[in-house]
């Protein structure tokens, strides 16, 4: 792919668009939300994604912790394994003496699509889901993405403020911008 292709494809080289920080004070969960396929839509926010907090089934914290290694191994072997989720970052935390789990995921798609893709991904890759170690997680999640979505919604702790230094930029755009930067840098080196 030439540098021109990378720069000229839509989304590859951003149009003249102000990149300026944004912050948003967010409404409470009970305010009116847009209807989504699996219930009310989470509005797209500056740091869009999940903050799920749930209680760990007694004695299951080590299984959750072991899952961290599993993800590391999976991504080493197939770097694209989670690509469909269109993530920027995941942060997983176990706290309160191994009784509670927090899942922070920053991603670009809307809530419904993330959940649906996650269910398909977990099933397709045979990765048993970390969520099965959590209290109240629906046993029929494999057949029932609506129940999976409902669990996520019930355990979502919405932000009351979010801030983004570069808002509305998808991870795909960041990667493309870095490729352009790299290609440009190589080109300048070769011109010397």
């Amino acid at each position: 792919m030439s540098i021109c292709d990378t720069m000229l494809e839509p989304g590859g080289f951003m149009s003249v668009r102000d990149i300026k920080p944004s912050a948003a004070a967010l409404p409470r969960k009970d305010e009116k939300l847009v209807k989504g396929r699996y219930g009310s839509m989470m509005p797209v926010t500056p740091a869009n994604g999940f903050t799920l907090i749930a209680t760990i089934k007694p004695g299951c914290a080590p299984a959750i912790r072991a899952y961290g290694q599993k993800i590391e191994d999976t991504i080493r072997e197939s770097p694209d394994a989670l690509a469909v989720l269109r993530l920027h970052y995941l942060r997983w935390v176990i706290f309160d003496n191994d009784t509670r789990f927090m899942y922070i995921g920053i991603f670009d798609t809307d809530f419904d699509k993330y959940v649906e893709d996650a269910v398909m991904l977990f099933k397709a890759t045979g990765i048993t889901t970390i969520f099965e170690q959590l209290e109240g997680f629906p046993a029929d999640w494999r057949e029932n993405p609506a129940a999976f979505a409902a669990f996520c919604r019930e355990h979502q702790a919405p932000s009351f403020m979010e801030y983004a230094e570069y808002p509305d930029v998808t991870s795909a755009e960041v990667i493309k911008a870095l490729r352009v930067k790299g290609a440009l840098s190589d080109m300048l080196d070769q011109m010397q």
Partner: protein
Amino acid sequence: MPAMLELDDIQHFLMTRPHALAARYEFLTFRTSEGGRQWLNGIIDTVGNAQAVKAADAADTRWVTVAFTWNGLRAMGVDEAALATFPDEFREGMAARAEVLGDEGPNHPDHWVGGLAGADLHAIVILFALDTDQRDRSAANHAGLVARCDGVEVLSSLDLAAIPPVEFSHDHFGYRDRLSQPVVEGMGDTPGPGAAIPVKPGEFVLGYPDEDGDGPRLPQPEVLTKNGSYLAFRRLQEHVGRFRDFLRQHGKTPEDQEMLAAKLMGRWRSGAPLVLAPQQDDPALGADAARNDNFGYKEMDPHGYAAPLGSHIRRMNPRDTAANMSRRRMIRRGTTYGPHLPDDAPDDGVDRGIASFFGCASLIRQFEFAQNVWVNDPRFHELENERDPIIGAHDGTFDMTIPKRPVRRTIKGLPAFTTVRGGAYFFMPGIRALRYLAAGGQ
């Protein structure tokens, strides 16, 4: 070993395509369960099953299709416990899902015609016919049946017919239609070159293995739901004058205008895909079923220099550039309504368009996903501010980017070429299930 499809029990509608050039849709309400059952008993023997219609000769006209809304199943006497086992989106109905589907402004159910947004829409009967004369005879027969059934009323009806030139199927904008359809495993059809491998029947018919395994649990009772499918109905008005004005406004020459029409669709109006014919139209390619669907995007057109990333066919079927494609396929049926507008005629304001059905096993995973994510997501494929140029919800604030060298072309403020004039979610039961309903749930 592919699952054996009970083709003698599955309605023909999604499985075969009879040689019909005309159709009539009638939208019904049942004021009493008795009347509904009487009506169903009166029509059931004319409902074609897949096996019979596949084998039929041109003289066989058992091409009736029957489907019910969730309210319609209740009106037929299905009990509340069973009704509760159907998925939420079907129970709510299409009008209640307007926000999910992007049916805003002029597309909102408040403006729909034909009584389709109301809770008293109970059933649709689709009468296929060889031609308009036969269609009118079928309609007269059906009117006779309705008159004999107490409490059965026709809320509205819609006449459909192929528009000239009838040699090939196309819409009022002139685009060739029916080019890319999934092949269902177990139907005995061979996929054309480039078509994906056959899709498991459970993606379209309830009670069979799907792309994920054994298929979801059936809504209850199984006698009612096995061999059934969901149909999402959309009546889309096509603003032909506005469309042609747009092409003239943005294309200097007839060639430029034809190219612009192709860029919106991803295919030339002849059907030739831009990926295979990027520079000029190739009508022979468009008409050749062995070649006109044999392409992908990932390797052949990753940046959209041929078919723009936001073009209609690229959104409705991203092929090798989307995850889980085999779980998003639908079988589309339907044709044009309203009179043909001659090329040189100004728009006469008459309602004309396409009235289509999207057949699937899950409205939420297949139809609503396509509508929500592929059609109306302004950031589909990392685009900045676009929706499907043909069927997206447009209010003049969205754009269309056409990648080209040395610089891309962006058309700002696309007008709405289509308006949703009605829609509904139906369940199309198998033949046994129709008999069960006709017998009052026995």
